[in-house]
């Protein structure tokens, strides 16, 4: 297992290196740069002044030098300086990270708590009214984009209760109740979609396992339904569910853009869009790298969980 994790980490490093190249190149391929944006806010362009600012920001240097400089900054823990804010990029990024991680984690918890039990009930009560109702519920979740649901929640709250959750970040240490309210609604909006996917995977996986011989044997031994389903069937049905959870979590980190925007949460995703619009390369590059790291780590955790869930799964010979 240890060897396997080391191998995976080594591959992860190579993946990140590849990612860094892709991020760097794609950003430079996008039309315009920070200097064009600065001039856009001033309403004109002066080629000579533009050149001077490009020199000041170091973006007049050859791309290879800029790329190597960025890699050096990552290795030394210095993420460079935000072009837009004239501040160290880390200082700009640092407050955003916990917000996005918390929202993604809460959304995932909500999705699992709703999706897995609903999937189990749906499988156990296959082709009953309850099963159909749950399947419609999950289909609706897949069909409704989370940003749309978020907007509907906001508009519903303001229309019926003349109230919406706080729109500036409330730290948990300052007011836990408000903090919880602020995060729960977007987590519900995002988690609903993920729960629908988890429910469908749980249902289909469990239906397959329930037809296995060992389940029939368990029933024949006279074990209770609870033991058969939760201990024997579900544990074996969980492998694909865990895979989906891992993929969904990774997807959430990058996919919270609109939800963070609608609920005005100061997270990575919302900020990333603004940074891209401003061509704030140091901030964008490092935020995308952060997302890539989270994706890779979540995949690694999923792989490790396979071994825990199914002792037959062994890695690294």
């Amino acid at each position: 297992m240890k060897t396997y994790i080391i191998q995976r980490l080594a591959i992860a490093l190579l993946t990140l290196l590849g990612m860094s190249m892709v991020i760097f190149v794609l950003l430079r391929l996008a039309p315009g740069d920070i200097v064009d944006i600065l001039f856009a806010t001033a309403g004109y362009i002066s080629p000579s002044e533009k050149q001077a600012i490009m020199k000041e920001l170091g973006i007049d240097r050859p791309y290879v030098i800029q790329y190597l400089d960025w890699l050096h900054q990552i290795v030394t823990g210095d993420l460079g300086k935000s072009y837009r804010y004239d501040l160290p990029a880390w200082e700009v990024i640092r407050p955003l990270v916990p917000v996005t991680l918390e929202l993604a984690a809460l959304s995932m918890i909500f999705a699992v708590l709703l999706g897995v039990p609903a999937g189990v009930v749906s499988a156990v009560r296959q082709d009953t009214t309850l099963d159909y109702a749950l399947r419609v519920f999950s289909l609706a979740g897949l069909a409704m984009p989370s940003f749309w649901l978020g907007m509907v929640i906001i508009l519903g709250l303001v229309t019926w209760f003349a109230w919406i959750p706080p729109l500036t970040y409330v730290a948990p240490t300052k007011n836990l109740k408000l903090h919880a309210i602020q995060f729960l609604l977007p987590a519900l909006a995002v988690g609903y979609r993920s729960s629908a996917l988890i429910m469908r995977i749980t249902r289909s996986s469990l239906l397959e396992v329930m037809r296995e011989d060992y389940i029939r044997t368990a029933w024949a031994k006279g074990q209770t339904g609870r033991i058969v389903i939760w201990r024997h069937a579900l544990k074996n049905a969980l492998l694909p569910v865990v895979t989906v959870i891992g993929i969904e979590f990774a997807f959430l980190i990058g996919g919270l853009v609109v939800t963070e925007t609608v609920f005005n949460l100061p997270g990575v995703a919302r900020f990333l869009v603004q940074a891209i619009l401003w061509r704030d390369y140091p901030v964008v590059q490092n935020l995308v790298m952060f997302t890539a790291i989270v994706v890779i780590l979540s995949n690694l955790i999923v792989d490790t969980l396979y071994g825990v869930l199914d002792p037959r799964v062994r890695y690294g010979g």
Partner: protein
Amino acid sequence: MMRFGALPLLGVLTLVLSISTLATPAQSQTPKSGGTLNIMLREDLSQGFAIHESSTISTVFPAAPCFNNLVQFDPAKATESTDTIVGDLAEKWSWQDNYRNLVFFLRKNVKWHDGKPFSSKDVKFTFDMLREGPDVPAKLRINPRKDWYANVEAVEAPDANTVVFRLKRPQPSLLSMLASGYTPIYAAHIPPASYRTTCVGTGPFKVKEWRKGEYLDYVKNPDYFVKGRPYLDGLHYVVIVERGTRTAALQAGQLDVAFPGETTKAAAEQLKKAVPQLVVTPVGTAVTDNIIMNSKKPPFDNPKVRLAVSYAIDRKGLIQAVHQGAGVPGAAMAPRPYGVWGMPEKELLALPGYGKPADMKARARKLLAEAGVTPQRPLRVEMVTRAIAVYVDMASFVINELKQVGIDATLKQIETAQWHAMATRGDYQIGANLTGLGVDDPDANLYENFACGSPRNYSFYCDEHVTKMIDQQSQELDPKRRLGIVVTIQKKLEEDAARPVLDHRIDYFTFWPHVKGLVPHHNIYNFARMQDVWSDK
């Protein structure tokens, strides 16, 4: 002829008057001290507090409470003119030597937010930096309003409380430009670049915290030079990028004041329906919809084709279809009551594009035929616009109008990052554009957008006679005569289709009734100081 424009204008005026009437009792109330206002921002401060390096309301509006000007437009009067200019850091001022020298007598005992004393040195520093004179003490990274001070020969500080602007020729407009929200005084002892991250001003509020992309907090400046001001303990600006969420926040009372230029007529009606007590004030925005045509490239190097475009676009139709009536017709300068330099309605209605739409389109077709455009040989052009909804909506309407006269235009959306570079270089044929004016003043507008060689003269229109008239009005000391010249210039610009103006946009500025002393101006850039605003909560 009178049918055009009269009704919307009358409607807006009625609304203004009714709201003014309603506001009278509130204004007679005794102001209370204390409280914090929650104010909407639609994006983060784009250049921090560096107003001199920016030309966007997203900088001026939230940064203004930190600063003072030499003079300002009276915060209590919605329509701005030279007659409404009042002192700010300058207690009084005087034109001397037949308008060749403008002398300011500064207030004493004014302190910067860091405790250092304010003096005439700071004023000299600011304007030497802006005009980039030979003895420039510091350089701005970007200096978008350098041209405003092209006529300033020298700025002198004979003593700590006196500043003299020596002009190359008389220029009464200078005072208006000094009163604009774009003209705050910077501290000489602070590097100008530092204003991108923090603010040391003399203004009524001091920066407490700026959480990037999230909020900006101010606290009351206890050492403010106006006794008893500001009334508020603080200001809390909240960045909300999503428009629906911004409106919901205002409706739910999480925000007290909307962002200038933000509330459309439809949104205002929806808000009023949900919360009838909200105060909605229709005001001019100092932003025009206009058409830029590259006069250096075919087919718009042909004046007949340019004029045909101007004739083809139904201004009234555009105001109704694109803005749901939230606009007023006007040429280069805003019409009354939104400005004081606009064309009289009678003359305006005689201009291309302002008559009966069918007649105007027939005229456009005739002009195009004279230029060789026929149904067999239609004119195919590419229309550019910024990839922002307010631009695209307007461009789509214009394309439909042009199609009706035989111009087949395809829309090309340009990202903000490329828009100004493209327009400045002239890499386009025809474009749908928005232009904001920092101050309702002919010099600020005409030199910037219509003078030969100006970087923001995107159409590359250049007429020696017009340039002469622009210079002439700039130094005309008699206001009536000056207005006459300005009207003639506007008429000529429209007849030449230099940059046809389609309408002047109206904002339905909204705030809660407990917000008192906030009078939105007919120019979004000039009423953000918040010095006299108080909360009756």
